[in-house]
């Protein structure tokens, strides 16, 4: 049997993680989760996920720091990262200047909340792109 595609959701909001998990499981993805930046990094190393859904405002280590760390590490740079955040680029940039989304090396980003189908489409697209990249 083909192993399930594993997605790591890193968000400090357990309710949101639960909602994303339910959405992703409708397409038979295997979902693992982490609730802060440090745990997120640990899970990346342990679980070797095919894709990461990452929040930006995280305890212990912020999502933008983790995103840069992973993309700067050749071992994890190929894992697609979908940034999912409540920090609105134009509204909150004064308060969270370090979280300027457009300057992040993420593969895609979207604001919370997300329509289930939109999430699934984005995940599918990123996984397909990642697969093509790996086959080249």
């Amino acid at each position: 049997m083909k192993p399930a595609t594993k997605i790591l959701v890193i968000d400090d909001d357990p309710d949101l993680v639960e909602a994303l998990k339910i959405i992703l499981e409708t397409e038979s993805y295997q979902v693992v989760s982490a609730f802060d930046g440090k745990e997120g990094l640990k899970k990346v190393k342990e679980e070797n996920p095919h894709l990461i859904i990452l929040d930006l405002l995280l305890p212990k280590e912020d999502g933008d720091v983790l995103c840069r760390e992973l993309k700067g590490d050749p071992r994890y740079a190929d894992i697609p990262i979908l940034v999912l955040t409540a920090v609105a680029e134009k509204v909150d940039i004064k308060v969270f200047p370090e979280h300027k989304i457009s300057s992040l090396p993420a593969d895609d980003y979207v604001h919370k909340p997300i329509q289930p189908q939109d999430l699934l489409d984005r995940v599918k697209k990123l996984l397909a792109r990642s697969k093509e990249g790996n086959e080249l």
Partner: protein
Amino acid sequence: MGQNNQPANKLEQILGERFGIEILNAMGIAIVVLDPNFNIIWANREYRKVQEKPEEDIVGKKCYEISFGHNRPCTVEACAVRRTLKTKKDSKGLKVIKRRGEEKQLDVYSFPLPGPRGKLSYVVEVIEDNTQLYKLVELCDRLTAFASHELKTPLATIYQLTTVLRQIDLPPEKRKVLFERIISRSQHGLKTVENFLIYSKIKAGELQITPKKVNLYRDVLERVLDFHKDYTLKKGMRFICDVPKDLEVICDADYVEVIYNNLLTNAIKYGEEDTEIFIGYGDKGDRYHYFSVASIGEPIPEEDREVIFKRYVTTRKDGSGIGLDVVRELITKHGGKIWVEPCYFLSGKCLSGETVSQEYKDKMKEGNNFVFTILKKLKEIQVSH
């Protein structure tokens, strides 16, 4: 009444030639007169104050030298005086100067002062130091952004859970769990709004308390602990409550609930996972009840222990800076005070930093203990206020 009896004329008689100068010096607005070559001819007292320089260091010098330490004039785009010299019309602009490492934001208005034959002889520059105003605008923007973010987070989650319930077929027990989460998140959103509403009441001076005798545990703490139960469980935390179950306190139960909600939210948010939160009570036999909320976590540095209770101050990047300000104001209304002290934890007990020797401190977990007081006889506040 004859002309000589007019107050202005009387003043002119008293002050003589100094009449105009004294008036200009008495104004709380900076005024400087420049010649067309940017030389300062005269500056009033406020201008010297803004520039933080004595008169002898100002008069005869170039304005750009005084303001910025430059050796040539600013560009026409940046300088209201240059625009006035060019157009012979009023002009305005913003000037940012640095004094002792601090930026000052100055609104500048310049006016042409024609000489006897209508030729532009001088430019009068009027300067308002609006640094505080600009800082307040910035703080207001920051607060608005924080308020939006704090409200957006629970709303986004509620929306996310609702879309899942609407679009995905789930077993009834799972649906029930999600509905409960939606209710809980809505309550948290409401608490956030409540905090902002109390805050605006405080700002407007409209906050009134209605003190009544209440059983603190039954009428306040039970509700508060139940409200925070889910979040504490998720972080593996638990409450240890030492407040006597029969303790009666004269207070406004709704606002004491807000005090506890804010303190416990912080304790859960910044406390270490898998640890205890201590909710304490003490009676020292004086006029006050002593309440406390302590948690294990990064100790608040000594230099921050007072400022965290000030308006708009947050030492955390994910804080609005109003939570503890609201708490402080509500406690003041109850005739009490709040402070934070370092504390140490051992075998399910929370000990004040003062009572633990250095030898033991090194072996114990550190944390923060927020202590607040409420007057036992609240009527005393109504008399003293």
